[in-house]
């Protein structure tokens, strides 16, 4: 997880006195009557690594393209450092974009690609050369300055695209799925490289991705989008631990939803009557506000413990008996589906400690009150 640290240990978005760098206000964009971006408002702070996460077609790219200036919103406003972006042409905006397919100029070599953006800025040739050289060093491509883009590997192209956008010293860098063209290994290595580069240059990054692991690993904050709307904004941990809706809970990671009415609530915890679980489920939250409402208790599979029914070896606030139905071996962990008497299948992830359960084995599962989170939407 990428944490934006300040001297006072406070996060800028938690400090009401800090003004956001980029303000997106009630932005709407429609294409032939189809609403691609629907009333989106976001505040993004200097130095953030902000991710737009969502499924295919939810409007991430469209939102990014409105920031860059390639699409114009039907309604709403966008400003950076108090500057109204909607009054500026793409070539006048102090933002730069790294394109999904990198969009490197095929007829120019790496150095010329990087220098392209500097030649509008009235810099002398020496200054341009110096800055191109420095940015090649930043992405470790000094030896490739003379190569044409088609003589580079995917990872190298990605770094040229990054260098070309950063050399302009933008106030905000927009990245549209910057890692999606790389294979898994390279992608993981590049994630850290990208974070390091961002910290070095101190530029605000806004990244579009549909890969939740990527968003979790790299971002200071994430905005989850669905059907053109932003449905939750928060730090990765906040979104994972406290998903605001069933959609987010199931979209980010994997989760068990135990449904039922809130029957008993107070400051020291609440109970939800879940027939599928076979009794009340205890949660640590105070659900007074939802008293009597039907809610779902979300429990992540890795927070559920598992033991053989005959050698029961843990205590937990919520316990149920069941039978192992499905087993997936993932190497570092095991994924089980345990069937409860009600028929409900509960996903349980167990660290691979060498204790394995077999199909149809009776087991006992349990989780603590603090592991469950109530979701009412």
């Amino acid at each position: 997880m990428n944490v934006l640290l300040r001297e006072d240990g406070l996060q800028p978005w938690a400090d009401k006195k800090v003004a956001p760098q980029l303000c997106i206000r009630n932005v709407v964009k429609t294409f032939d009557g189809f609403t691609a971006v629907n009333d989106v408002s976001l505040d993004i702070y200097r130095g953030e690594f902000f991710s737009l996460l969502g499924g295919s077609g939810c409007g991430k790219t469209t939102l990014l393209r409105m920031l860059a200036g390639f699409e114009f919103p039907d309604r709403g406003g966008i400003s950076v450092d108090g500057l109204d972006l909607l009054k500026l042409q793409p070539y006048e905006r102090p933002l730069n974009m790294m394109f999904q397919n990198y969009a490197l100029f095929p007829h120019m070599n790496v150095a010329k690609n990087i220098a392209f953006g500097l030649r509008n800025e009235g810099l002398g040739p020496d200054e341009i050369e110096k800055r191109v050289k420095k940015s090649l060093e930043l992405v470790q491509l000094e030896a490739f300055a003379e190569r044409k883009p088609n003589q580079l590997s995917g990872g190298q192209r990605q770094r040229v695209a990054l260098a070309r956008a950063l050399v302009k010293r933008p106030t905000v860098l927009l990245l549209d799925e910057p890692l999606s063209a790389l294979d898994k290994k390279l992608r993981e290595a590049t994630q850290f490289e990208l974070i390091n580069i961002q910290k070095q240059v101190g530029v605000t990054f806004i990244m579009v991705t549909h890969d939740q692991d990527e968003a979790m690993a790299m971002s200071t904050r994430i905005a989850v989008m669905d059907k053109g709307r932003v449905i939750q904004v928060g730090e990765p941990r906040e979104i994972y631990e406290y998903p605001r809706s069933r959609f987010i809970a199931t979209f980010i990671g994997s989760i068990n939803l135990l449904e039922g009415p809130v029957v008993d609530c107070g400051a020291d915890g609440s109970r939800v009557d879940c027939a599928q679980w076979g009794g009340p489920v205890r949660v640590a939250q105070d659900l007074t506000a939802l008293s009597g409402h039907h809610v779902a208790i979300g429990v992540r599979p890795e927070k559920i413990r598992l033991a053989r029914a005959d050698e029961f070896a843990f205590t937990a606030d919520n316990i149920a008996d069941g039978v192992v139905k499905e087993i997936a071996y993932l190497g570092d962990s095991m994924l089980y589906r345990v069937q409860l008497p009600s028929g409900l299948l509960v996903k349980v992830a167990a660290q691979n400690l060498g204790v394995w359960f077999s199909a149809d084995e009776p087991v006992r599962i349990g989780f603590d009150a603090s592991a469950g989170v109530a979701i009412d939407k």
Partner: protein
Amino acid sequence: MSGEPIFSNAQTRSFGRFLTVAIPYAWFITFFLAPFLIVAKISLSTAATAIPPYEPLVGWADDGALVLTLHIANYKLIFSDSVYLIAYASSLRNAAVTVIFTLLLGYPLAYFIASRSAKWRAPLLMLVMMPFWTSFLIRVYAWIGILKPNGVINSTLIWLGVIDKPLEILNNQFSVYLGMVYAYLPFMVLPLYSHLEKMDWSLLEAANDLGARPARVFREVTLPLSMPGIVAGSLLVFIPAVGEYIIPTLLGGPDTLTIGAALWNEFFSNHDWPVASTVAVALVVLLVGPLMILQRQQGTGGHP
């Protein structure tokens, strides 16, 4: 035993491959190379009152020796007689002017079509090709009807009172250029379109994003990337335009002289096949350079 079917299979396949290559070559040899060699042969002969109307190159001398007589006088003629030089020069000039104007008109048109959304491109391209649905000759005659002294343009302008006597816009160099640009425009637009359409348009956005104004984006990204299309279109217009006969003859003035007209004169008025053949061979030689550029460019897939 098990290896045999694979072996014969491979052989069939290589025979198929041979055939697909051999057929176009056979076509080329029969319908281009052989006629060209015959024409080249005739160009080395002299005219005679015979059928065919030229002296054979090979004959028997009085002493029974086999003689091969090659005349190069025809080549000397076309390089010394100003009529032919003027004809070549004006054909080249017509072709060059046609290339320049079809490019100036065709590039914006091709760019416009290529930048439309997919559903508009096909109908717009159809419009570009629409003239081909009408006979070429009829279209040229239509231009006569439009340009002549009492034609559409002149009568409209007189009726509007803009002019009081007809403009001379037919049977001169202007009408030749107009007709050629009109006729060759699609040959410029189509290759330009196909290269512009293939271009990655996000490159233009990237250039824009990096601070380049539209003029610079065009100069440094669009133009270089569409250069193969410009070269292909220019050659596709230039090569046939040099030999163009009908348009200068029908729309040009009485003194319009082109290679096509020179050829026609030698064949049908003077019945001098050898000189006519020489004119034709010289034309082919003249076009070998541009043809080779085109060949090379297509061969490398449009990348210089």
